[in-house]
């Protein structure tokens, strides 16, 4: 009995150490698990950034191809940081990238694309952030991987950099393609 008691402090220390080490290895508390993965992309009816002044886009414009949907804004410095990588992805792979101009001034957004290049097939203007709320966006940039059927397959919060592309996005796109979800294909 007394001998067993000797082990109490060691045990307490051990448990505490394990809990604290787990605390260190936990993910960034600022990263929220996405509630929307494997859910259909929400419906919307919003103006386009470029083209005819009254041109609008809806969810059906996202169907038919694997796409990255990238939430960005000119007021977001990280968006500028990831812009080069989006350009590179677009040029190198031909993957469809759709932008959501998030709570931004459309004139500035157009000027920004003119200055830094435009990797987007088209840009949806979400001026007041309502589509952002439906997408669970809590800060730009956020990037969604949407399959040809309009289902969100993955969400990345923060900048898309070569590492993120290689480790998180490219393998998932490859898996989608392998399962018959062809980018550029006409299948729903």
């Amino acid at each position, binding site marked *: 009995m007394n001998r067993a008691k000797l082990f109490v402090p060691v045990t307490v220390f051990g448990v505490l150490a394990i809990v604290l080490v787990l605390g260190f290895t936990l993910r960034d*508390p*600022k990263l*929220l*698990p*996405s*509630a*929307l993965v494997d*859910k259909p992309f929400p419906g919307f009816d919003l103006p386009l950034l470029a083209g005819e002044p009254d041109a609008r886009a809806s969810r059906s414009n996202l169907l038919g191809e694997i796409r990255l949907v990238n939430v960005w804004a000119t007021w977001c410095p990280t968006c500028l940081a990831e812009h080069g990588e989006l350009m590179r992805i677009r040029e190198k792979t031909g993957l469809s990238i759709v932008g959501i101009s998030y*709570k931004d001034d459309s004139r500035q957004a157009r000027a920004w694309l003119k200055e830094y290049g435009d990797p987007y097939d088209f840009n949806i203007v979400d001026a*007041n*952030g*309502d589509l*952002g*709320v*439906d*997408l*669970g*966006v*809590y*800060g730009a940039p956020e990037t969604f991987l949407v399959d040809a059927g309009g289902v969100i397959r993955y969400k990345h919060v923060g900048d898309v950099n070569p590492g993120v592309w290689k480790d998180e996005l490219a393998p998932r796109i490859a898996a989608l393609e392998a399962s018959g979800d062809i980018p550029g294909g006409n299948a729903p």
Partner: protein
Amino acid sequence: MGVVLLLAVATCLGASAIDGFDFPDPETADRYQRLTTEFRCPKCLNESIASSGAPIAVDLRRTVRRLMEEGATDDAIRSHLQERYGDFVLYDPPFEPSTWFLWFSPVVLLLVVAWVLMRIARRDVARETESDDLARARRLLRDSG
């Protein structure tokens, strides 16, 4: 310093008047107030969407307000936000396997403490009886001696 303070005060004042919503009656205003304090701001971690001045909190307040106007129940509003932002936005965590540790650990801890205390108490009782027995034995020895 003064400027910072002034800015802080101005921000707070702005926050209370931000949305500039007109409510038809005090009950609706109370309900809005209660609901918005129930949700955690996804960007600022330690603030409710009622108290945060972050743009995302403004958007979520507007969403709550819109859902209220559409006649949604409290539960419908909760699940609307939960579907989009996950359990994270709920200050009141749901009861499910991933939160069992959260819900059960205080009870388990309490039971452990109770068990330890009981053992200590019982040992003391045992010691007391032991010393009582000794005293009685001595008395008996002395009396017979």
